[in-house]
């Protein structure tokens, strides 16, 4: 294999072992490289220096309220799909200082300048997560006010995306036009083949990352074979002829969804789902687009030094809607309704697009297995 001149749009072939040289190159370029690893029995993003840390041969089984990893001897690098983490954990961290205050003789002095952070390179990001990134970009960067810390991290971000070649039972990215194929938003797009990787080079940063990795340009047949991976997966998601023993393919009917939900704010299903919902907020924590946050005040004992920390918040808590006159959304039914109608309807009013990418995390990580696709179907059923 020889290394040839690269331009964007190229498809190149590398040996699986050469993935390490991309990771090493990214480290050399100054990135903090993160990628999927096994943490507490789940695939989660963590710092990555050696590709052997990837969950090689691991396959995930996901269902409503169910997540298990299975080890195989396939040697495949990327045959699990998404775990509880997403890019949100890095670009919109769960806890972040937003302002500090120090008292001097002159009164209070404030500093809200964002901390400089090492740029991140994320390996193994899926199509649904890239769609979620675009949605969070719209929230944090698309309005009159820009979140400066997010903007800095976003600008520095390097993305090596992976085309899924299998889906789990909770995946419904095809319903949300978010996958399974990676269309845009990454620097390099990897498709895993039996004995090699095919990489699509989408940006100049992608060229730079490949510069020290042995590669050769793909033949037409090799490109076609790589593209067929996503195509056949998408086909299997659309029809119920899955190649794996998937009990039930999930699908979210998006036709008229905005008006359906807003016309049914008093539908009996909200109370029915509240009978099962624990209001634990797990769905909002694992959701790659949920952006609600609150700010905590932290002060030292002298009271002369304080700072404010932004933390992920959840619309399932009472505090989320608390005013001096009380909590606006006092019931679990009201909170579930807020979450679902925001995600699938009012998000469109607020940001011009739907807030769901069909990654299925909220279904998998719900301790009681509430399935938003089933809730929408139930509302559609008895719709007014």
């Amino acid at each position: 294999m020889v290394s040839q001149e690269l331009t964007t749009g190229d498809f190149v072939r590398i040996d699986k072992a050469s993935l390490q040289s991309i990771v090493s190159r990214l480290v050399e370029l100054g990135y903090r490289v993160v990628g999927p690893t096994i943490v507490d029995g789940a695939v989660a993003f963590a710092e990555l220096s050696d590709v052997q840390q990837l969950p090689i041969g691991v396959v995930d089984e996901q269902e409503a309220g169910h997540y298990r990893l299975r080890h195989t001897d396939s040697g495949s690098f990327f045959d699990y799909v998404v775990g509880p983490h997403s890019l949100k954990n890095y670009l919109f961290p769960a806890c972040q200082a937003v302002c500090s205050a120090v008292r001097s003789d002159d009164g209070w002095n404030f500093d809200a300048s964002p901390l400089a952070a090492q740029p991140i390179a994320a390996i193994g990001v899926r199509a649904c997560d890239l769609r979620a990134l675009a949605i969070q970009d719209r929230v944090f960067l698309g309005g009159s006010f820009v979140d400066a810390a997010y903007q800095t991290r976003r600008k520095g971000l390097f993305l090596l995306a992976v085309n899924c070649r299998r889906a789990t039972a909770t995946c419904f990215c095809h319903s949300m036009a978010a996958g399974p194929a990676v269309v845009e938003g990454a620097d390099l797009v990897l498709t895993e083949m039996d004995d090699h990787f095919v990489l699509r080079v989408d940006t100049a940063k992608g060229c730079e990352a490949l510069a020290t990795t042995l590669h050769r340009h793909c033949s037409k047949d090799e490109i076609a074979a790589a593209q067929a991976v996503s195509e056949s997966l998408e086909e299997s998601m659309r029809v119920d002829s899955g190649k794996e023993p998937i009990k039930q393919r999930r699908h979210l009917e998006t036709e008229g969804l905005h008006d359906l939900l807003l016309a049914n704010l008093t539908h009996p299903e909200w109370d029915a789902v509240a009978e099962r919902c624990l209001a634990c907020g797990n769905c909002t924590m694992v959701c790659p687009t949920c952006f609600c946050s609150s700010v905590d005040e932290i002060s030292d004992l002298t009271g002369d030094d304080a700072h404010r920390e932004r933390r992920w918040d959840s619309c399932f808590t009472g505090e989320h809607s608390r005013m001096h006159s009380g909590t606006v959304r006092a019931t679990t039914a009201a909170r579930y309704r807020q979450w679902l109608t925001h995600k699938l309807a009012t998000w469109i009013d607020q940001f011009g697009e739907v807030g769901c990418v069909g990654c299925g995390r909220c279904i998998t990580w719900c301790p009681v297995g509430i399935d938003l696709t089933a809730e929408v179907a139930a509302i559609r059923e008895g719709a007014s």
Partner: protein
Amino acid sequence: MIVSADARPALPQPGGWRCEAARIEQIRQETSDVSTYEFAWRDGAKEEGRSFAPGQFHMVYLPGYGEAALSISSNPAKSETFAHTVRRLGNVTHALARLSVGDSVGIRGPFGTPWPLDRFAGHDIVIASGGLGLAPLRPVIYELVSNRDRYGRVAIAYGARTPNDLLFADEFQSWRDNDLEVAVTVDMDALGWDGPVGVVPGLIDTLDADFETAAVFICGPEIMMRYTVQEAFQRSAKSQNIFLAMERNMSCGMGLCGRCQIGPVLLCRDGPVVCYETIAPFLNLEDL
């Protein structure tokens, strides 16, 4: 310049978390639990982007206690100083009440969508407010008084629980002197009160304005706003000309934290002044 309700700043503003020190210049006790605090920017005079439009709010930061979203109650033509009229209600507002002239606080903003005054130049303006709800409308009144010729008839309906709870009562006469109709009511009669006793919606019928083309600006408790809207409709007000200043728990002020949602509205960004037409479907639903 008055920014219209549908003209948000076009350019991204990275400074939304930026906090500027302001010093208390003056404290005026309005009622038993409401005071007006006048502030001046500590580090220099008027800063770029620190002027505000009527209806906008600041996030006022008291280190160690937290932030509160407080509407600005002063004259928008003066931006080197500004005022907040505040009821002692929570952690931050109680801490504010313990401060003295010369103490400093942090200010973020101004944030939010103002009252759409420029759209109603040449038209009658009706203002209805209850209790502390007069505070975010006071900048509108300053504007109406300063540029009286720009508008048609102006009628203000204001009510509070008791005569002692009326805000800015010493200013009513000067408003009247400037050709503003000021109708005032109290919920409960009291010694020395010779005005009407009743609720603000009950005053709407008495106001001298052409409701069919007038702007109707309402701020007060939600229940008062709902009944006032019904009375305005009785006088043929148009729902697209009725604007309410709503309250939710604004936290970031920038539309980035999701906490102040009412249906499709991110209140800190799309409000606090919202058109009745937009908010009506979501106004009468419990727990939304």
